[in-house]
């Protein structure tokens, strides 16, 4: 990114199809980076044609320049850096979108307007005279359909014609009313299928049953896709991989063998239990967790881009408010069920620090990520719903109770809900795929190295006898309070690095169902994995991170002890 390079900014309200347009304009070379000095992700890419060679920047959605700049939002600062502004307007919602357009025209930067969702106006009974609008606004106006690519070439071709207007409008809404009455006519039309579905999915009597079905189907689909990937792709791959591993195992010994290969189980390499870097260290993240993370984010991406999630947020809003959050917090929570790292990052959509603290703490304590879920199934699967159900029911109760307590004890209030419900749209697969790729990268970049590091450190700690030392220290809690055997201490220490490996270490100990339930709950709650911890630290700062961790440990001691008494 050179400062001399020409910068084109993509600016518009939220949910006007900016991302789709961005993908269309830039192709594959997209980088997501932090805006200097902030934690806001900014997408940028290249536009290169005969006439243009510039950087395209996707400015996060804004409704009003004034409000955005008063709040000292990053988007406002970004606007100062642009050489050209492409103002993306949702043509099915022209009136509201023009407010930002008029504000942009007041600036001293050339503007070009893209009338996006041009194809949707027809069945919504809206007709718009784009030529007339161009004349009134005094800058080029180009109809576009980001999904199909219609109008994109014309838009690119006209970027150099973008005009500086610098017109000031005193009473913007009055002006907008005049413009709209001149360029737009609306015919009466029958509700489309999607519009009927909009009402159906947000009215509580029909929406709540639908939400239950959607969530159930989501998790069924994740299981099906994940299991399919493991059975047909990853397990066959790893059985091919077994041959070179065995060869290495026969030709190494001592320290090297125990670090790389680990312990042989019945004289053979066991990917689940050997605990070597090249065995368990890569098998668990790649062949057990990654398929589920992939499946989860694929299904969630489709749900997001269909426009369903704001409806879910509306339906759960009253419950979430009692836990100190908005209904919208359901989104980071669901992301956290894939991997806590993107879940924690997604809490940025919540506007207050208080909400984010609660959402992050609850995600870390009671939202098992796919890795944890997979291992809970691995440990307790043979006990069926009695085992697994108890763990998840306990975590759900913890989520609710800790949420209520945090909401009562933290100062301040949850701000009133004020949320746009986007219309339903058919997801664009290329955009879903891109988003999936970014999230998978988070997982592989953050999770896999920590997993390897975790396995390595544990092997070292064993080797040096530190595990048994820690075991002695922690045994009163583990043995007396939780009713677990002393050998489980090692697993709990590993849990600091990777919960999945930790749960895997419990397998050979021959624990009873009750002990397995307690161990699963304790492992999920007491501390997030080290990758999540790093992100929490970055998001909350030291003081609140310590507070959050104290809550986790306190809750774990209470819940683990209670389970030991009750079960």
């Amino acid at each position, binding site marked *: 990114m050179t400062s001399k390079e020409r910068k084109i900014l993509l600016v518009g309200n939220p949910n006007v199809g900016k991302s789709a347009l961005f993908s269309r304009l830039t192709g594959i070379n997209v980088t997501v980076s932090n805006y200097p000095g902030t934690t806001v992700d900014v997408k940028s890419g290249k536009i290169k044609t005969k006439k243009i060679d510039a950087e395209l920047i996707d400015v996060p959605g804004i409704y009003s320049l004034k409000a955005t700049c008063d709040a000292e939002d990053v988007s406002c600062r970004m606007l100062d850096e642009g050489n050209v502004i492409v103002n993306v307007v949702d043509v099915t919602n022209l009136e*509201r979108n023009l407010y930002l357009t008029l504000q942009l025209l007041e600036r001293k930067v050339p503007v070009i307007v893209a009338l996006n969702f041009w194809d949707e106006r027809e069945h919504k009974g809206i007709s718009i005279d784009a030529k007339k609008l161009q004349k009134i606004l005094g800058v080029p106006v180009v109809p576009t359909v980001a999904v199909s690519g219609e109008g994109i070439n014309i838009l690119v071709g006209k970027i150099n014609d973008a005009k500086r207007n610098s017109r000031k409008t005193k009473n913007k809404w009055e002006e907008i009313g005049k413009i709209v009455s001149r360029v737009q006519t609306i015919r009466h039309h029958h509700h489309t299928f999607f519009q009927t579905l*909009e009402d159906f999915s947000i*009215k509580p009597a029909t929406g709540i049953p639908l939400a239950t079905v959607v969530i159930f189907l989501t998790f069924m689909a994740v299981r099906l896709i994940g299991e399919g990937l493991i059975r047909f792709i990853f397990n066959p791959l790893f059985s091919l991989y077994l041959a070179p591993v065995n060869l290495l195992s026969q030709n190494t010994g001592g320290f090297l063998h125990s670090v790389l290969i680990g312990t042989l189980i019945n004289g053979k390499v066991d990917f689940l239990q050997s605990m070597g870097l090249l065995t368990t260290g890569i098998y668990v993240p790649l062949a057990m967790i990654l398929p589920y993370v992939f499946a989860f984010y694929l299904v969630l991406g489709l749900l997001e881009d269909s426009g369903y999630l704001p409806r879910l947020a*509306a*339906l759960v809003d009253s419950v979430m408010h009692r836990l100190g959050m908005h209904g919208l917090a359901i989104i980071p929570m669901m992301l956290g069920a894939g991997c806590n790292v993107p879940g924690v990052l997604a809490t940025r959509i919540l506007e207050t620090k208080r909400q984010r603290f609660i959402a992050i703490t609850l995600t870390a304590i009671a939202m098992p990520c796919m890795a944890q879920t997979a291992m809970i199934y691995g440990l307790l699967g043979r006990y069926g719903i009695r085992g697994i159900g108890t763990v998840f029911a306990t975590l759900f109760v913890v989520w609710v109770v800790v949420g209520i307590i945090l909401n009562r004890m933290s100062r301040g209030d949850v701000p009133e809900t004020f949320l746009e419900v986007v219309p339903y749209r058919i997801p664009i697969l290329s955009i879903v795929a891109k988003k999936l790729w970014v999230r998978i990268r988070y997982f592989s970049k953050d999770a896999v190295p920590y997993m390897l590091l975790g396995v390595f450190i544990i092997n070292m700690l064993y080797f040096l006898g530190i595990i048994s030392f820690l075991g002695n220290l922690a045994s009163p809690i583990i043995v007396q309070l939780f009713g677990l055997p002393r050998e489980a201490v090692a697993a709990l220490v590993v849990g600091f690095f990777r919960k999945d490996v930790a749960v895997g270490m419990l397998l050979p100990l021959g624990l009873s169902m009750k002990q397995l339930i307690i161990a699963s709950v304790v492992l999920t709650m007491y501390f997030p994995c080290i990758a999540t911890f790093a992100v929490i630290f970055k998001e909350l700062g030291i003081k609140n991170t310590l507070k959050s961790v104290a809550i986790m440990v306190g809750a774990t001691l209470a819940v683990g002890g209670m389970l030991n008494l009750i079960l």
Partner: protein
Amino acid sequence: MNLLELRNDEVAVIVGLDGGSAFKEKLSFMNIRLNKRIKKVATQPLSGPVIAEIDGRQVVLGRGIAGRILVRR
């Protein structure tokens, strides 16, 4: 009357917004302005939010906000 008192599926005209200029500007982002027609789509249970529709777009409004949107049938 305010938006809370409107029945579900009823349409009304906005006749007042009970709040300061920041409040009014925020609402204007969702096209909630004087003289606009607003439809109450649903009310979520357990003192949950109100769903309203303006120009064919739905918006989720906490009850505190909905109560400050004054309407006439």
